[in-house]
């Protein structure tokens, strides 16, 4: 009996009890997302929109860098930035609109369309990385 008492007072037992109490709550919410937020625990929509937002931030930072250094950067980088401006804006807006359609009518087909539209975001990030490497190489003597 003393052993049982010691076990019940032990940190391991406390952890087990806490985990058991937390399990129903955890099961009711999407992992990693506060369910009281605007996404209401919908991790798929959040992750899709967060991908769009993060891509925009990376692109905006890259274009700001180009804008601030346009006098010294090679013309190829400026042309690349212009291409990104022209293609990224419609791609990001299309992806955002596709997510909006999915939010109003979530279907398996709509989910596939969202995932396909996010490929454009990944492509933009790859292009930014390429241009950044080129601009770094251009600056290195």
């Amino acid at each position, binding site marked *: 009996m003393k052993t049982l008492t010691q076990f019940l007072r032990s940190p391991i037992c*406390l952890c087990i009890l806490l985990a058991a109490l937390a399990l129903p709550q955890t099961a009711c919410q999407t992992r990693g997302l506060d369910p009281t937020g605007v996404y209401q625990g919908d991790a798929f929509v959040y992750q899709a*929109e967060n991908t769009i937002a993060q891509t925009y931030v990376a692109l905006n930072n890259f274009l700001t860098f180009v804008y601030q250094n346009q006098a010294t950067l090679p013309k190829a980088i400026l042309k690349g930035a212009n291409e990104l401006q022209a293609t990224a804006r419609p791609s990001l807006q299309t992806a*955002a609109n596709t997510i909006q359609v999915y939010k109003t009518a979530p279907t398996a087909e709509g989910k596939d369309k969202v995932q396909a539209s996010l490929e454009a975001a990944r492509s933009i990030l790859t292009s930014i990385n390429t241009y950044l490497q080129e601009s770094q190489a251009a600056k290195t003597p």
Partner: protein
Amino acid sequence: MNPVLVINALTAGISLVEQFYPQFLELQKQGLVSPEDQAKVAGLVDSIRSGAAFNGPQWKPFPTE
């Protein structure tokens, strides 16, 4: 098996849970994406959708000639 000892042990266990469970919930909540951060993402995506996010000078074509 002494029932008094069992009840005492269970009471002690429940007391510990009552003491630490709110802290555990708070720690669990800290690991989640907060409503504020979710709102920031949603707001930025709304401005991308409307086109308002593309108004800065960095979004105008750069001269290449």
